[in-house]
């Protein structure tokens, strides 16, 4: 079972975000991390490798610094990485991201493509389905459980109020939800081994795509404006003397604001 996990590097979710004049997040100004949802995909892929054999490859499109996220995934146990990086790809929207990833995937050998259900920065959640569309593969989104049996991949697909069980012949694209597993920490040996693992770099010219298909020029959806969430007013801090007093104070607060 060879799994390619598509991993995006995103600004740390807890960091304050700044925006560039063209309404994109200023990534240089913040600490960047692996998209938290993708960590579940990496973990799930590693588990499949452990139970089925095979390999895990990390595929990332992003700036050169996104290599850090690939390294972390390699430290968790993935075998190799591919970084698609090119100034021409900057500002790609969800559709062109999927297009670029699909072209990179064309160069790889895989049974399954895994992704997180969405990224914490742009939050479109469109890439997994768009990617399946580009690859002409089945799309199994929002999986809360993934199983391989009889040449098929079977997932519990989360829907409001419960889940569907769906299956498809693989290769297929599977996106996983938060909580599908508990992502492991990279181990120290993994960190030390990661530097010896290969990260292949691809540029726009390696993808065999028309010039206007990605990046700013390939944009189908344009961010016309961003408005930061208004600052929350400072909360009220209470320091009661006992747990009972604390419970009372919280209850009073909830009642006063008509929550209970």
């Amino acid at each position, binding site marked *: 079972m060879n799994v390619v996990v598509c991993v995006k590097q995103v600004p740390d979710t807890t960091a304050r975000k700044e925006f560039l004049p063209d309404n994109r997040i200023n990534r240089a100004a913040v600490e960047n991390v692996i998209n938290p949802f993708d960590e579940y995909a990496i973990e799930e892929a590693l588990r499949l490798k452990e139970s089925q054999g095979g390999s895990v490859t990390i595929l990332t499109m992003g700036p050169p610094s996104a290599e850090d996220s690939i390294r972390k995934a390699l430290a968790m146990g993935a075998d190799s990485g591919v970084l698609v990086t090119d100034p021409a790809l900057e500002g790609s929207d969800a559709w062109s991201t999927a297009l670029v990833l699909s072209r990179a995937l064309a160069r790889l050998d895989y049974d399954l493509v895994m992704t997180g259900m969405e990224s914490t920065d742009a939050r479109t959640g469109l890439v997994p389905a768009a990617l399946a569309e580009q690859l002409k593969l089945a799309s199994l989104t929002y999986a809360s459980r993934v199983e391989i049996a009889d040449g098929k991949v079977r997932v519990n697909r989360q829907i409001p109020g419960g889940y569907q069980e769906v299956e498809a012949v693989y290769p297929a694209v599977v996106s996983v939800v938060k909580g599908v597993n508990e992502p492991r920490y990279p181990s120290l040996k993994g960190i030390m081994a*990661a530097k010896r693992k290969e990260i292949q770099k691809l540029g726009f010219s390696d993808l065999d795509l028309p010039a206007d298909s990605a990046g700013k020029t390939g944009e189908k959806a344009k961010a016309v404006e961003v408005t930061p969430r208004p600052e929350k007013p400072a909360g009220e801090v209470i320091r009661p003397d006992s747990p009972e007093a604390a419970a009372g104070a919280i209850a009073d607060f909830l009642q006063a604001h008509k929550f209970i």
Partner: protein
Amino acid sequence: MDFDLTDEQVMIRNLAREFADSEIAPRAEHFDKHKEFPYEIVAKLADLGFLGLPVPEEYGGAGADTVSYAVAVEELSRGDASVGITVAAHTSLGTMPFLLFGTEAQKQEYVPRLAAGEMLWSFGLTEPQAGSDAGATQTRAKLDGGEWVINGTKSFITNSGTRISGGVTITAMTGTREDGKPEISNLIVPTGARGYIVSRDYDKMGWRASDTHELAFTDARVPEGNLLGTRGEGFHQFLTILDGGRISVAALSVGLAQAALDSSITYAKERVQFGKPIAAFEAIQFKIADMQTEIELARLMTYKAAWLKDQGRDFRMEAGMAKLFAGEVATRAAGHAVQIHGGYGVMEEFPVARYWRDVKIGEIGEGTSEIQRLVIARLLGL
């Protein structure tokens, strides 16, 4: 010159930080209060490889450098100094002596299990009558029928009395040298050796979740082959061991000081008096600015000592300066932190109270601040 950590060092720092934030810090209060050794945390650290961080890969370690090790101890100690010292003592005092001085057979026998964290190991130097003057050891060992027979007492020995303590390496007088001075050697004593008793458990003010016991040797017997490396080299060996250990204790102090600073900044922004957050008062800002400055300086000296060691260069002076400075900086930082928290700083539900109790040992263990000054002065030729 390059002040940036390498990619690997950054990854190790991030891992230690993430682990400290999510697994250690939230439970530190509990372990401290109940004086409970954090077995589960130590087991997880072992799984991740933290108990063999600077151990070469051929002996089952991660093969990371000393800078990574210092950074890791710093971050773990930011979560809980007790966890930091458990890792630091196991590594620098427990494992390193085997790597530095053990025979190949001894390295093969002990190091892989220690690096994997299957067991902890401790180093027994201090005695009731031999603290700073560690060469004044009264513990004696005599050869008898192919075995060392050991008599004596060791005080304050970290990691010696846990369920996973594999043993202790001790200094002992094994005879008298030609110049009339005592001949000191290091002996490997596994837990459970006949006549070796892990006796008193101490009730400590700080590092309460770390394990510290008194050890009693009454005609304790170990095989002759349990001599660590060369006979009569014990004095030189323990000085070298302590030089390396100082880097990790310095790192521990830096981590603890950073925790005190982080708590202080958060609290100072939250606490309102006279109609504004106390962070708006210059008196508070100056304390925080001093903490920030001193902690960064202590960190730089700690990393420099570690870096020198990684370069294979003499790092003794820098390790002494780092331990001395970081220890004293951390004590000041914890003091400021309590002061900034006011009455709440005295209350155990705020972590700064624990930092304040934990921090002082950084000026005492592995050579007091006075002894660091002596080391530095001696290296200056005084």
